[in-house]
């Protein structure tokens, strides 16, 4: 019986995965808009970045607010190798990952013993140093404020990825690989070691876990994946510039992880929608209101007296539309606060959190029973 139930439960999950995958594959046909396909590509890149930071912040619990630096190392490695030495984009990808990982190991080694909040400012510091390095261009390789342009598109077997649609599938492919990898890492010996370090570092150490090594691996693997995202980003836009890799974007990545639910893979997707797609949607609010009004037209027309109501609604939506660009970020900031107040555990918390809820519901009547064991 139990086995059957768990089989069904697993099956249930698998069906969901398949449905989601089918949806992702068919998305461009539903949406039929290059703009929204491009938004989906942006979503994919940020989701990969969020998943990569999730290793460091979500699993290992390290306060990293400079992740854009690793993203930058990946993007610039690809850009430099590609534009100067003509190395193909897809060959650059693993190189970007390795360089970003080495960079992460070099900078994290001396700072890993710092307590949480000290680590936070140091990672911010490294992020800013990297950005200034790109900006000031001391070795004449980063192109300074203008960045690097003319980066190739990825191509393989004579296919070149250069349309929004082809990029959509390109990014989807890497996102799926990332997902599988993260899922495997989370449920592995190394993944558990990260959560032990997050929960109680001293206890983890006395359990025989080499905490310094484990934390360094979190930085290195997180950085490698961010490096891959950098490679994808560089070839998607063919131009990169220092301001993309600002502190603000490190903040966005951090918020993706926490908003969605620290350590939770589905949470990363929800967080990415919240941090990256929602602002886009807010930009499109006038269009949406118009569509909404279009839907209302028929029933309201049937009721008669539609003219006056429609005019009024259009006026309101127009004034909202005119002011949206201005109010967008204000609303966004307030929403971040509200989200944390009402769901501090994130929008889609890790499954362990649901365990706790179940336990709390049972706790009142069952506490006597369990205490007697």
């Amino acid at each position: 019986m139990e086995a059957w139930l768990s089989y069904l439960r697993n099956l249930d999950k698998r069906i969901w995965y398949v449905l989601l995958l089918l949806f992702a594959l068919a998305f461009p046909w539903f949406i039929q808009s290059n703009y929204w396909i491009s938004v989906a590509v942006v979503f994919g890149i940020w989701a990969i970045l969020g998943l990569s930071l999730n290793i460091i912040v979500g699993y290992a619990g390290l306060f990293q607010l400079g992740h854009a630096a690793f993203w930058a190392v990946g993007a610039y490695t690809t850009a430099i190798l590609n534009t100067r030495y003509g190395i193909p984009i897809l060959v650059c990808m693993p190189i970007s990952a390795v360089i970003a990982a080495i960079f992460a190991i070099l900078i994290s080694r001396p700072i890993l013993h710092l307590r949480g909040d000290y680590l936070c400012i140091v990672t911010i510091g490294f992020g800013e140093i990297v950005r200034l390095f790109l900006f000031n261009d001391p070795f004449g390789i980063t192109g300074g404020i203008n960045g690097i342009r003319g980066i190739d598109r990825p191509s393989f077997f004579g296919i070149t990825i250069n349309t929004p649609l082809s990029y959509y599938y390109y990014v989807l492919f890497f996102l799926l690989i990332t997902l599988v990898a993260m899922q495997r890492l989370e449920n592995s010996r190394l993944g558990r070691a990260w959560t032990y370090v997050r929960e109680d570092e001293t206890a983890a150490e006395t359990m025989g876990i080499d905490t310094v090594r484990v934390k360094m691996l979190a930085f290195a693997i997180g950085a490698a994946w961010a490096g891959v995202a950098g490679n994808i980003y560089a070839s998607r836009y063919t131009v990169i510039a220092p301001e993309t890799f600002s502190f603000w974007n490190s903040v966005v990545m951090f918020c993706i992880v926490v908003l969605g639910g620290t350590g939770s893979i589905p949470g990363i997707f929800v967080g990415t929608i919240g941090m990256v797609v929602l602002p886009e949607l807010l930009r499109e609010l006038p269009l949406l209101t118009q569509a909404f009004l279009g839907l209302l037209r028929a029933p309201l027309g049937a009721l008669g007296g539609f003219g006056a109501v429609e005019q009024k609604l259009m006026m309101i939506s127009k004034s909202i539309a005119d002011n949206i660009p201005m109010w967008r970020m204000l609303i966004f900031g307030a929403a971040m606060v509200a989200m944390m107040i009402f769901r501090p555990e994130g929008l889609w918390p890790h499954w362990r959190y649901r365990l706790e809820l179940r336990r709390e519901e049972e706790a009142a009547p069952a506490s006597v029973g369990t205490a007697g064991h």
Partner: protein
Amino acid sequence: MDILLQQAINGLTIGAFYALIALGYTMVYGVLKLINFAHGDLFMLGAYMGLTLISMYLGAGMTSGIIWALLVIFILVMIAVAIAGVIMERVAYRPLRRAGRLAPVVSALGVSIFLENAVMIIYGPRYRMYPKGLIPEIQWNIAGAQVTLMQVLTLVISFFLMGALYYFVHYTRLGTAIRATAIDHDVARLMGINVDAIVSLVFILGPALGAAGGIMVGLYYGRINFVLGWGYGLKAFTAAILGGIGNIPGAMVGGMLLGIFETLAAGYIPQGGAWKDAISFFLLILILIVRPTGLLGERVVEKL
């Protein structure tokens, strides 16, 4: 030699700004173990409120007695920003006090985005100018270095405020309550301390000092914009960590040190201006590698 002295004086002035803001970070951290990322934006809010009040005063055609008017404006702005600070704590932080370490940080970042954009909507995205000539442009020549009246005032006011804060925290009953709360909320509560009131008090003191810093930055540089809080906030936070976060004299020392170091680096290192921020972070990282809890931070022996 004269250049060195000049740079040191300029650095000390900037350091005073950093120190004033850093105190807000350090006190909030001390009591709540929270990095209040919105603190820099309260400082920025102070700068804008100061601008509004000064413009109103000048707009009313009054130019005499500007020093007294400025004093009143300072006090009004400090009160207003303190109120903003208390509201911020109530709305964005208090509900999250038991929600772990990360959620309050995101909430703080949200407040920061909110405040910046609110100011941008009200005052516009461009630089705003502080009226010129409010503080007489008097200069003194000391051993070949120029010292302006503004610099002297900045240092006097900052040191006065910092001294007052130090006295308050270390020699009054309320100050003792703050220190007790910083050590252990539960024990403080058992001692009859109203912890919520103490937290509110900290969110009055920190933002008020930040606001004073904001007006002084406006007067000193003559122009402000709505992202002012990020740059100064980050520097001040760096200063607080440098000195040992949670430690009030540490924030003062850290701020001054960072200001001086930054100015000297900008003056003496080739292209130092472009690398100014990188250099101060580099200093921070170096110090933390050697002393993981900052210059004046106490070494924490973990209780097992």
